[in-house]
């Protein structure tokens, strides 16, 4: 693993186009999925994705290859999204949990989760996932879709491991009732 991360770090340092192309191919979809979970909307995500890759090239020297590439990439993407949200205060991610203003699609637009649901379980989750606090949704996606450890998530979101764990438990607790009592 370390060999792979060192190879990525070296490629980034030299702004090696072959390495950059491979990274885009490998992480593009995951970046889209993460940003949708963060913003709760699909429109505008492509701009953030492109901005993230440009920032990756610009700050390529700051990835040292000592840890996995994904947490570093997601942290870059998160910072860009947060900066944009600060400029547009109608969206907030790090507001007080439970009281935060939710990022959501414009009224009348279907939720990105409703449009993207491909399984029955996903269809059942779509609505509650959309109304879930972004910080919980983000923690669930990073843990269960990106398969990141709590320590890695903690680095991305800039919160203690105990807070990350608490967000995962609360997120699961909010979504679990959808499936309780099901024998399927």
């Amino acid at each position, binding site marked *: 693993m370390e060999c792979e991360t060192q190879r990525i770090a070296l490629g980034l340092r*030299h*702004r*090696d*186009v072959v390495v*950059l*192309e491979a990274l*885009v*191919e490998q992480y*593009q*979809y995951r970046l*889209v*999925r993460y940003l*949708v979970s963060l913003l709760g909307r*699909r429109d505008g995500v*492509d701009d953030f*994705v*492109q901005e993230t*890759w*440009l920032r*990756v*090239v*610009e700050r*390529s020297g700051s990835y040292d290859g000592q840890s996995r590439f994904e947490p570093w990439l997601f942290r870059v993407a998160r910072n860009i999204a947060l900066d944009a949200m600060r400029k547009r205060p109608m969206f907030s991610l790090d507001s007080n949990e439970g009281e935060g203003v939710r990022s959501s699609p414009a009224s009348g637009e279907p939720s*990105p*989760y409703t449009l*993207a*649901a*491909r*399984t*029955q*379980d*996903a*269809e*059942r*989750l*779509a609505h509650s*996932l959309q109304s879930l606090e972004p910080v919980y949704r983000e923690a*669930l*996606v990073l*843990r*269960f*879709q990106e398969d990141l*450890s*709590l320590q890695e998530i903690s680095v991305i979101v800039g919160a203690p491991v105990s807070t990350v*764990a608490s967000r*995962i*438990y609360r997120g*699961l607790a909010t*979504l*679990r*009732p*959808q*499936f*309780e*009592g*099901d024998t399927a």
Partner: protein
Amino acid sequence: MNIDYHDTFQRMIDESLAGVLSAEKEQSLREHLSTCATCREYLSASNRVIAGLSGFSFEVNPTFNARVLAAIRLQAEEGRGILARDTWTMRHHSAQFKNWAAFAVALSMSFVGSGLVYQMAERLTVPNHFVTAQVQAGVLIFWLLPSLCAALCLLAAPGENRGNA
């Protein structure tokens, strides 16, 4: 079994899913699950949430990747140009600094050496059949003054050329 008892194990299920439960507690949880339908139901519902999260597929415009790749290629090429220029400037300045430092050290040693010989002129006169004043004049004319001139030239030279002195 009371509710608190289930709560304890359900908390352990959450911790297990988050990846923070110790191996010892995992074993204890497995044993409990084999006998408790309520906690099995809790685990099953949690697993369906996790499975549900994987059931979303967001569409990505096929031209989007090409657009991103074109943008980063351009940025990478610009960046490489800057990087190459920075590296050249750094090396150039580094070589200049080394030359300048070596010259300054040589000059300082020359000053110290000539100063010492000047002071010891009296001891050098007897074996070489010179008078003290002759030795001191020689040191001044052929050693100390040239060193002083070199130092003044070094200080007067513009910064850019100083390293090449």
